[in-house]
């Protein structure tokens, strides 16, 4: 389908969609190329216009840089950044612990800030730079925080660990690692059921004290 250009249209909504493009794909023989919103489809199914209802998907283009690589994607708006990593981009390092922003296992950096990828709609990150645990170290050498976690045994099962490390690096960059007490508070958004907390604090304090660039 041809891209709809916004020039020549004065509707505010089109100006809104200056960059956005919508692609519609239909496979049903009965339904033609008209905009179909979810309730319409459901109504269609309910009233049995077509038992094999049109398999359609509405996708939004997205250009996003992840770990230094620019991705040009076309995804549904409902895809979270976390599920984009884990199910579409083969980046399973970021973990799903609750999917509701309650455990911190999905913590990544977006434009340098630590955020929860499970509550982030990927389409809202047009043009942003994302770093996941896979992108933290720049080569064979571990990032000082990764090494500190190993040295201080800041993990056991390892599942919350990527989120802890991304959070820990941000914690120091934010300037929130000036004391053990501050580290504890500012790391409280990352739950560790194995209970590695004291060693996590030690790892962060070590890196802070060591003065290496994080």
């Amino acid at each position, binding site marked *: 389908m041809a891209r709809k250009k916004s020039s020549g249209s004065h509707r505010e909504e089109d100006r809104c969609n200056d960059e956005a493009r919508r692609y519609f794909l239909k496979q049903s023989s009965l339904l033609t190329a008209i905009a179909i919103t979810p309730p319409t489809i459901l109504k269609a199914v309910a009233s049995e216009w077509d038992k094999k209802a049109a*398999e359609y998907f509405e996708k939004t283009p997205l250009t996003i840089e992840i770990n230094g690589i620019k991705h040009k994607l076309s995804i549904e708006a409902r895809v979270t950044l976390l599920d984009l990593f884990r199910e579409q981009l083969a980046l399973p390092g970021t973990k799903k612990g609750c999917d509701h922003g309650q455990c911190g296992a999905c913590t990544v950096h977006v434009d340098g800030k630590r955020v929860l990828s499970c509550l982030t709609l990927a389409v809202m990150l047009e043009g942003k730079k994302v770093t*996941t645990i*896979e992108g933290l170290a720049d080569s064979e050498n571990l990032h000082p925080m990764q090494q500190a976690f190993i040295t201080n045994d800041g993990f056991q099962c*390892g599942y919350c660990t990527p989120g802890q490390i991304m959070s820990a690096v941000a914690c120091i960059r934010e300037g929130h690692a000036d004391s053990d007490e501050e*580290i504890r508070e500012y790391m409280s958004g990352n739950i560790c059921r194995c209970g*590695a907390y004291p060693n996590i604090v030690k790892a962060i304090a070590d890196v802070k004290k060591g003065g290496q660039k994080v």
Partner: protein
Amino acid sequence: MIENFLPSNQKADPNDRVDGRAKVTGTATYAAEHKAENIVFGFLVGSTIAKGRIKSIDSKNAEHAPGVLAVITYLNCPKVPGYQTVKDPSKPTVNQPLHIFHDSEILYYDQPIALVIADTYERVRHAATLIRAQYEKAEHHTGMEENMSRARRPSDNESNDYKRGEEDAYKKAAIKIEQTYSQPIEVHSPIELGSIIAQWEGEDKLTVYTKTQGVQDTQQAIMEAFKIPLQNITVHAEFVGGAFGMALRTWPYEIAAIIGAKKVGRPLKIVLSREQMFTNVGSRPTALQKIGLGSTHDGKLTGITHEAFAHTSSNEEFTEAIVNISRCLYACPNVNTRYKVVPLDVCTPIWMRGPGEATGSYALESAMDELAHALSIDPIELRLLNHADVDPESNLPWSSKYLKECYQMGAEKIGWNQRRQQPGTLKEDEWLVGYGMGTGTFGAFRWGAIVKARLSPDGNLLLQCSVNDMGPGTATMMTKIAADSLGLQANKVTVDMGRTGLPAGPTQGGSATTSNVGSAVYDVCSDLKIKIAELAGKDGSVFKNANNNNVKAEDLLFADGGVSLAKDPSVKASYSDLLKQNNSPALEITKESKGDGPEQKKYSMRSFSTHFVKLLVHPATGVVRVNHVVSCADAGIIINPKTAASQMIGGAVGGIGMALMEEIVIDQRFGKLINNNFADYHVPVNADIPNIDVLFVNKKDPYTNPMGSKGLGEISLIGMAAAVANAVFNATGKRIRSLPITPDKLI
């Protein structure tokens, strides 16, 4: 396969975890992260009633939703061969898992009623919301307090009532304590969600990647359910993101994935939601315990009565050793215990870290603290006065017991001399300060394991065992034992583990992995040493010449990646040279190590721990801040102090959660869980946890296993909740006998 990467330019601590690099780089692959061609996604829809039956399910809208391949319910579920076994109606069901999609019966809230399968995760989650069910409600029973009349004796012999001496002797004692303690349902809540990828090959070959604590057990369960040959079932669990007991059985969601994968002919992944992790994969039972303690005026126990009620499900009997701690911890001539289970309409409970003892120790150790207070003697003094020098239940000597040392070491480290005997009299600013302690014990179990070792001509050692690790550090422990035994650098050892097809390892549980697998590693390395000695002692070798012929393993030192003659270390060769010079292929030995020696019957084998807590309580708000924790363990020889300390810390954190915040809440009107999520079910966060000091007695046990170790994964938690509760009493003078001790209970 755990590749032990230790870069040469970094100072590596030999105690660092061998899988550390994988975990900190996000390259450790957990169940849901495995790749499969054409994989599809499944999601379970749960019942919105607690008890009754499904009258109808309307799955039409779900079936027609974009991308949906199938919807499976009891109406169309393919027959699972193993479900056809007839239950014996005369006996309460034991080990009788819920048969998913077997019939229309609803046994608990959120029980799966449908499996929706679609080609993307987003589509399956959406389609799942389109399932509509009508129910016929039945009266539900979901609260233990309200259903005590339904309590019954468990059907297994291990749970029989026990008595030595006189029953309820405490009633006649000079000083007596008689109290009731209650604990809510607790849920394991590992951060990794229950996950499985099931992939069929043809009609009867199956591979699963799943969250399990025992790949062999999962394999067995799948065989029993689907009646396909055991060797056709491959179970992978190379990395497990915590479990704490919830992965000790194969759950209905796993069976559902296998059914679904067969139905759609594609690999199927199911990942439970966090809400489902609270409703569908077991819990530590809620418990009501009555303790009666009687003693002389001098503090010598004359009677212990310990009665416990704990919940099980309505369809299955779950039992655990809640009251057993009272039989063996203290020297007391008159002890009797009683235990009943109360069936409730919830998911069957499952062992949770320190099953039985974690629950029982809270009651017993709180009661002991109450007794100490009534006697006006120091709580540690009371423990020492009643120290059991032999196991009072079996009358066997202990294989080793350094509990007294644990009391002493822990007390010194926490600063126990700062504690006031009179509660509520110590303050720091406006905070009340309290010190408390608790004792923990758990069996030092060992059953067996098979490990294969392969020493290659390049001098590298490969260890293989099907055992898998949910966090304690199994591969690291195996590496350590082998490296120490053979004098190898840790990065010369590779561990291949976590799947079936490898030599049979144990299920990870019971604090027994080091004892089971470590012993097998120890034994296989001992056998390797014999083979190495044989090689070294071949005709014409420098060893043979220098040693008056006959080279035995005892004549050699195994160090620096090779061997040397003990009496003349200049006579040496690396393993690599030895094998190459002799044109030897890799040395391979498969060794089974069993803990079934005569010592098991001659000694009582238990690990012991003490927990000391200093905490602050705000008198106006009731907020509790744990200030300092000292946990001390008698766990025999400590194989790896780093990972062992982490286990102790982890258990202490779990104990703090148990004592101060964890509680499943059920709205009894509906029989539904209210707080089945991480925002409302509170596990400790970083700010809750202070400095935790871990101490080990580190004295060898002569009988448990060749290393002399005892388990510690669970004594790390057992006794901790009592230590916290006792510290709260010391701080405030308020004895809280129902967990968790939240601020509202203290104001």
